[in-house]
C-alpha cells in the first residue's frame, strides 16, 4: 500500500512493458496528467537507469519498483490520495489519444510501417529514422527495401550493422547518412539539428555535425548560401566503414547542378579513408575545400583541392571560391600559375631521400592524404618502417636518422651514403619518381652538385622514365652559390625547385592516382547510380518532433506510428528473422 510521503502526498505508478513513446509525447502527457484533479506532480518516462535516478532525486521513485528496462514506460503521479492518483493513471490512454488526433494535420491515422507510409507518400525520397538504436538497423533495412535514402539519427548501431547497411545501400544507389547523424540540410530542408541558412551554391559533406553547422552558419554570415549539407555520422570515415557515405555524398554533389563548390569537413579520418576521399575529391569537376580537423593541412591548393586549417577558414575559402566560380562563369580566367608538369606515372613509386629530417616530415604531412607512405619517421597515417635499409612502395627516408648514420657523418656533410642509396633506388624498376633535397649554407657540403649532378645524368641516361626532383634550400649568398647549383643539377636532367610545396604538387600530379570523374571506392563499390538530390519528401520514423519540424519547413512528410516489432519479444523476432526472405546474408567479410 502506498504510504504518504514527507509532503503528505501519495505516489502511484504504472509500468508498461515494451511501450515505447517518444519524449515529446511523454512531455505532453505529463502536462495533461498534471492538469488532472488532485495531481501535484507527475512523471512519464522511459525507465532507463538515468531516468530512474532523476526520479529518485525528485522523490518520485516508487518504492519496490520491479526491474525495468529502456523499453518500459514508467508513469508516476504524486497525488493528494491514491484515488486521485489511480484515476489520473486510468486516463492515460485517453490523454494520449487526444494528442494523436490533434497533432496530425491530416485526418488519416498514422501508418505503422515504412512500407505503408511510402504508399501514402509515393514520392518520398528520404527516411528520417530516430528509433532506439537496437531497432534502428531493422527499420533502416525496411527503408532501403522501400527504395529510400536514409537519415539515421539513431545511435548505438553496431559497426557490423553499419557496414551491412551501407553495402546494401551502395548496391541500390542509396545513401545512408549516419548512424548517429545529427544534421543535414537537403534541398533546403533541415534534418535533425540544422541552421536556417540561405540557399546557394556551396555543397557540404561532413563527418562532424557541429562542424557542419559552424561552417554553414559562417557561410550564411558571409552572405553566401548552401545547396546541400550532408552529414554522414561520426564513424563513416573510420577504417571499418571506409567512408562509404562520404564517397557517395561526394558523388551526388559532383553531379548536383545546384552545387558549384564542395566542402568536405571531418574530424581526423583514418589515413587510408582520407586518401580515398582525397582521390574522390580530385575527381569532382568543381573546386573542393577539404578540412580534416586536428591534422596539419597539406599544400594549400593542389589541382581542384583546397586545404583549410579550420572551420572558419573552410567557410572563407568556400565563399571565395564560390565568388570565383561566379566570375568564371562570365569570363574564363586562369586562377593558378602554370605548375610544373611531369608525365603522369600512376602506379610508379616515390622514393624521397632527405638530408633534412624536417623536410621529410613536411613531405609526409602533405602527401599522406594522397599516397600510402612508409617512412623512418613517426606520423599519424604513415606506416613506420623498422628497417630503413631497404625500400618498398612509396618510401620517405630521413637519411640523417641515427640508425643510418652509425659511424658516419651527417649526409649534409658526407653525401656518400645518400648517393649510394640513390643508385639502389634508381635500379628499382617500380620506382618512377625520386625526391632529393640539397640544403646549402655554412657547414654544409662545399659543392653538392659535384657528385650529385653526374649521378643524376648517368641515371637519367639509363632510365628516361625516372624523374628526379631536387629541392634546393638556400640563398644566393650561401657559399655554394644557389644559382650555380640549380643550373648544374637542372643541366644533369633533374627538376629543380626552390620550395618544397611545388615539388610536392608535381609529385601528387605525377604519382597519386588521377581518377576520372567516377570514383569507385574500393571499400564500398557503388553498384547503382544514386538519384540526384532534390526537394525532399520524408518518411519519419521515431521522434515525432522531427516530423513536426519537416511539416513546419513545408516538406511533405508522413510520420510512422512505430512500435518495437513483435512487441520486442526476442523469440518472435528470431523467428521473423528466419522467415525474412529479403534478410541480408551475414556480413562474412567483416
Amino acid at each position, binding site marked *: 500500500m502506498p504510504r504518504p510521503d514527507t509532503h503528505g502526498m501519495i505516489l502511484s505508478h504504472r509500468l508498461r512493458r515494451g511501450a515505447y513513446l517518444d519524449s515529446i509525447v511523454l512531455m505532453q502527457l505529463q502536462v495533461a496528467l498534471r492538469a488532472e484533479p488532485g495531481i501535484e506532480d507527475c512523471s512519464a518516462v522511459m525507465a532507463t537507469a538515468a531516468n530512474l535516478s532523476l526520479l529518485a532525486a525528485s522523490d518520485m521513485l516508487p518504492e519496490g519498483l520491479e526491474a525495468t528496462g529502456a523499453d518500459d514506460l514508467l508513469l508516476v503521479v504524486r497525488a493528494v490520495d491514491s484515488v486521485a492518483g489511480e484515476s489520473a493513471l486510468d486516463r492515460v490512454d485517453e490523454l494520449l489519444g487526444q494528442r494523436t488526433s490533434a497533432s496530425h494535420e491530416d*485526418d*488519416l*491515422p498514422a*501508418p*505503422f*510501417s515504412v*512500407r*505503408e507510409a511510402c*504508399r501514402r507518400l509515393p514520392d518520398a525520397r528520404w527516411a528520417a529514422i530516430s528509433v532506439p538504436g537496437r531497432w534502428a538497423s531493422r527499420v533502416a533495412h525496411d527503408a532501403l527495401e522501400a527504395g529510400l535514402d536514409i537519415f539515421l539519427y539513431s545511435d548505438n548501431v553496431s559497426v557490423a550493422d553499419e557496414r*551491412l547497411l551501407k*553495402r*546494401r545501400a551502395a*548496391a541500390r544507389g542509396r545513401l545512408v547518412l549516419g548512424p548517429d547523424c545529427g544534421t543535414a540540410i537537403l534541398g533546403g530542408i533541415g534534418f535533425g539539428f540544422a541552421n536556417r541558412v540561405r540557399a546557394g551554391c556551396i555543397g557540404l559533406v561532413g563527418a562532424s555535425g557541429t562542424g557542419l553547422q559552424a561552417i554553414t552558419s559562417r557561410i550564411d554570415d558571409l552572405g553566401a548560401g548552401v545547396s546541400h549539407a550532408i552529414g554522414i555520422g561520426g564513424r563513416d570515415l573510420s577504417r571499418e566503414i571506409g567512408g562509404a557515405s562520404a564517397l557517395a555524398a561526394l558523388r551526388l554533389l559532383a553531379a548536383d547542378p545546384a552545387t558549384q563548390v564542395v566542402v568536405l569537413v571531418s574530424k581526423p579520418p583514418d589515413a587510408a579513408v582520407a586518401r580515398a576521399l582525397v582521390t574522390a575529391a580530385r575527381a569532382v569537376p568543381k573546386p573542393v575545400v577539404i578540412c580534416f580537423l586536428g591534422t596539419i593541412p597539406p599544400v594549400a591548393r593542389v589541382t581542384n583541392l583546397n586545404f583549410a586549417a579550420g572551420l572558419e577558414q573552410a567557410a572563407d575559402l568556400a565563399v571565395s571560391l564560390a565568388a570565383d566560380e561566379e566570375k568564371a562563369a562570365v569570363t574564363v580566367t586562369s586562377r593558378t600559375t602554370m605548375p610544373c608538369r611531369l608525365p603522369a606515372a600512376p602506379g610508379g613509386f616515390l622514393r624521397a631521400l632527405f638530408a633534412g629530417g624536417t623536410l621529410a616530415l613536411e613531405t609526409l604531412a602533405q602527401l599522406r592524404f594522397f599516397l600510402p607512405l612508409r617512412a623512418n619517421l613517426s606520423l599519424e597515417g604513415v606506416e613506420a618502417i623498422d628497417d630503413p635499409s631497404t625500400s618498398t612502395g612509396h618510401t620517405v627516408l630521413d637519411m640523417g636518422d641515427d640508425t643510418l648514420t652509425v659511424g658516419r657523418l651527417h649526409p649534409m656533410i658526407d653525401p656518400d651514403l645518400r648517393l649510394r642509396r640513390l643508385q639502389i633506388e634508381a635500379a628499382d624498376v617500380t620506382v618512377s619518381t625520386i625526391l632529393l633535397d640539397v640544403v646549402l649554407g655554412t657547414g654544409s657540403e662545399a659543392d653538392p652538385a659535384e657528385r650529385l649532378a653526374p649521378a643524376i645524368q648517368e641515371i637519367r641516361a639509363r632510365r628516361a622514365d625516372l624523374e628526379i626532383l631536387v629541392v634546393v634550400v638556400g640563398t644566393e649568398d650561401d657559399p655554394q652559390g644557389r644559382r650555380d647549383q640549380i643550373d648544374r643539377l637542372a643541366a644533369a636532367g633533374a627538376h629543380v625547385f626552390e620550395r618544397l610545396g611545388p615539388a610536392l604538387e608535381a609529385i601528387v600530379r605525377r604519382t597519386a592516382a588521377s581518377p576520372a570523374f567516377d570514383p569507385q571506392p574500393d571499400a564500398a563499390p557503388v553498384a547503382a547510380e544514386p538519384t540526384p538530390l532534390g526537394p525532399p519528401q520524408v518518411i519519419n520514423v521515431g521522434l515525432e518532433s522531427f516530423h513536426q519540424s519537416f511539416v513546419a519547413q513545408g516538406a511533405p512528410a508522413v510520420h510512422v506510428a512505430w*512500435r518495437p*516489432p*513483435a*512487441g520486442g519479444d526476442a523469440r*518472435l523476432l528470431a*523467428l*521473423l528473422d*528466419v*522467415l*525474412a*526472405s*529479403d534478410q*541480408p*546474408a551475414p*556480413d*562474412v*567479410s567483416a
Partner: protein
Amino acid sequence: MNDDATEATRPNIDEANRTAVGRMVASRPRLVDVATAGDVIPGLTKDLLLHAGPPIAWPRMSGPLRGAIIGALIFEGLAQDADEAAELAASGDIRFAPCHDHQTVGPMAGVVSSSMAVWVVEDDTHGGQTFSTLNEGYGKVLRYGAYDDEVLDRLRFLNGTMAPMLSSALSKGDAGGGEAIDLRALLAEALHMGDEGHNRNKAGSILLATRLAPALVRVARDATGDALARVLAFLGENALSVLNPVMAAAKAMADAAHDVPGSTVVSTMARNGTEFGIRVSGLGNRWFTAPCATPQGLYFAGFSADDANPDIGDSTITETAGFGAFAMAAAPAIVRFVSGAPRDAIAATLEMYEITVGEHDHFTIPPLDFRGTPVGIDIRRVVELGITPRVNTGIAHKEAGIGQIGAGLVRPPMALFEEALEAFAEQHLRA
C-alpha cells in the same frame, strides 16, 4: 557473397506470397447452380454433418452450433425431436467435419447436411467447385442454432420451392442456358455501392436478385400459385441473400492461394463458436486454434455482451480473401459497428494494408482513390507489427435458437499467428 542472396534450397517467401496472392486475386468464381448437398459436396454422406470453423467434437460445441446440429438432424429425419437429436449427436453414430474440409463454407454455425440445397460456385480461372447453403434471412434461423417449426418450415421452402427454381435459372441447372453470375464482378460493384461483403450485403443481394429475376420469370411459367413472387421477395428482401454465394466465392479465392510452398499467407480463418482457427498456405491443412473472443459491437435492444456467444462462423473467409472488414472503408453506413465515424472505416482498411501482401486488382475502394483492397494476410507482418486481422461479424446469442443479437468487430487471438509463425520457421529451417 551477395548481400541479397537467398538460399536456393529454401522457397523465397516473398515470391511464394506473391504467387499465392496472385492466384487468390486471379480466381474468378461464378455462380452456376443450386444442387442438393449430398449430390455435389465430396464425401458428404447422410451420417456426416459439416460445421463452421476448425474441427470440434459434440461435447465442446457451443449452444448455437449444438442447436443447428439438432435442427439439421430433425430436418434430415434422423431424429424426431431435440432430445433424440442431441442423443444421436452424442452417440458417435453421426460424424462431424469442418465445412472447409469439403470445399464448403457456412455462416455462423455453418451446419450443412446431405439433403440441404447448396449454391454451386465454379472457379473459372483455377477450376474446382465450392459450396454454401441458401441464406435463411434474419431472426430465428438454423445458423444461429434455432430449430423450431418456423425454422424447419423455412428450410423446406428454401429446399423445396426456391432451390429448384434457382437451379433452373442458373447455367448448369436443369433448364440449361441460364445465368452464370460472375461473383467477383458482382462483389466489385457492390463495394462501390456501400457493401463490404461481410456484414453489409444489401447492395449485393439486390444485384443478385436483379440478375436472377428475368431468368426466374422465364423458368417459373409453370410454377404454382405465388411461388415465384415468394422467391423473388425472399431474395430481394433478405439483405443477406448474397452472403452465402459470396462466401463460397471467397472460399474459391482462398483455396486458390492454399498450398503454395513457402507462402506465409493465411488461407483460412474460421470459428466454430469455441475456437478460432487459421490455416496457412505453406503449412498444408494444419489448423492453428485458440479460444474465440467475444466480439465488440452493438447489441439489438434487450441484449448485451453477457448474452453473446463467442465468435462463430466461416464468414471470416471474406476477410481472408481481401474484403469484409478489410474493405470497411467502402462501407461507411455500418461504421457504427466499428466505433462511430466514417474516418474510422477508412482507418480500419488502412490498418489492414499493413499486414497484407498485396492490393486487390478487382476490388477497389472509392474513398481511398480506388485503391485495391488489402489482400493476403502475411503471418509475419501480423506478428511483427502486432496487428491482427479485423473481422466484421454478426453476434449470436449463446443459447441455441435465439439468433442474432448484434454485430461488431472481432480479431483472432495473436497466439494463432505466433504459433503458426513458429511452425513455419521450423519447417523453413528443415527445408
